[in-house]
């Protein structure tokens, strides 16, 4: 259940492959019938998720906003009273119908991803001849004359890129460095380890502090406590949080 409002810090932010993916997630989490989506609830949760993303300073792609508008439109159409009709056959079409069709279609493909992933994993256990020279050995040989000069150029670019010799494009603005949760956890662990007397959590917050960094730091802390690597102490709610290594953790 997406309990965004009640306990935001416990919430593990999943990554979605677009608005349809997010909607399917909400439908699954709420255990509702895809053919009879409670549109008002789902729309609310969808919007809550977008505002959560916003509060975490994550960019929201345009497709998500388009879907939000679609949901709200469906919701308002469902609120309109249906004109009574004599003939049940020309009853107005369910405003959710098109969306349901899209969700069903998308879900079919999503379901095949596991199969492909399994095949990919299996295939990675097989090696073919010449794998040492050609690590990406799913590149089958090419027929003579099948290769254009541009492909030759592309091949060199690829080789240079994979050798890590790409020229960095000069940009006027250096974007703020974004670290991952894993990196943040490693950083936190390193600092705590170097402070046997305990590390005040506040000292980890660098100024100027960005909301994103603070949330990430807190998520890192929660994760490390959950894993049993760190112990967090707080005398009273007024005091700062002091972090220790767990004695049994290496």
């Amino acid at each position, binding site marked *: 259940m997406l309990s965004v409002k009640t306990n935001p810090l416990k919430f593990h932010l999943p990554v979605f492959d677009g608005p349809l993916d997010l909607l399917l997630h909400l439908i699954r989490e709420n255990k509702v019938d895809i053919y009879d989506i409670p549109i008002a609830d789902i729309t609310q949760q969808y919007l809550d998720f977008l505002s959560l993303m916003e509060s975490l300073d994550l960019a929201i792609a345009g497709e998500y906003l388009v879907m939000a508008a679609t949901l709200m439109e469906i919701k308002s159409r469902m609120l309109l009273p249906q004109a009574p009709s004599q003939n049940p056959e020309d009853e107005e079409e369910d405003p959710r119908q098109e969306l349901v069709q899209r969700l069903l279609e998308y879900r079919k493909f999503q379901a095949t991803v596991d199969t492909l992933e399994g095949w990919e994993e*299996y*295939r*990675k256990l097989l090696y073919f001849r010449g794998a040492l020279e050609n690590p990406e050995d799913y590149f089958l040989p090419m027929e003579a004359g099948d290769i254009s000069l541009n492909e030759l150029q592309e091949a060199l670019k690829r080789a240079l890129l994979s050798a890590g010799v790409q020229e960095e494009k000069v940009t006027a603005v250096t974007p703020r460095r974004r670290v991952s949760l894993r990196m943040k956890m490693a950083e936190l662990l390193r600092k705590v380890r170097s402070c046997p007397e305990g590390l005040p959590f506040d000292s980890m917050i660098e100024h100027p502090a960005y909301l994103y960094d603070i949330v990430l730091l807190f998520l890192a802390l929660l994760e490390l406590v959950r894993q049993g690597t760190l112990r967090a102490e707080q005398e009273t709610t007024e005091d700062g949080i002091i972090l220790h290594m767990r004695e049994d953790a290496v």
Partner: protein
Amino acid sequence: MNLSSAIECLLFVAGEPLNLQDMARALQCDEYTAEEALRELQLRLGESGSGLQVVSIAGGWQLATRMEYSETIGRLVTRNGGKLSHAALETLAIIAYRQPITIPEIEAVRGVSASGVVKSLQEKRLVAEVGRKQTIGRPILYATTQEFLHYFAISSLEELPVLENFEPEESDTAGGLLANAALAEASSETSQEAIYPDTP
């Protein structure tokens, strides 16, 4: 001179999947004889405890190492190129089932922009341009390649599971390593129409 050993040599030097026709031509025999010799080779490799095996892949047969040696080999060979992302796999699945397909058509299914993913799949040679659709704007049509089959260690598109039967709730367990063989078997009933339901 023994036919099955000759086939072993052919598969060894080819370095790509060979079909029965290729083998029969080089062996100067008919395809039926080549197929028998191939079975004999598979049997011998298994019985003699060889580290190699014959796999059916990308429409032909190729020599490959057995799975249990992947860790040892991994210490000699560093493989670059990690796994495909979820978005890439999803896009590949759509292309595989609906090919030939245009980028707007992919986007209609996924609900997100697809050109970046398609471009990277194209660079990996897993999909290729196969023509243009005769509609307004003449958008490029994409299809999967031989490398797609090779990448997923399947022999043909017919091994793809039937889309209609897929229930996502049950799929969590389907990803097992050896789903390969079972799926290949299960899919043998599928017809070409089931694979390209939308193609005229």
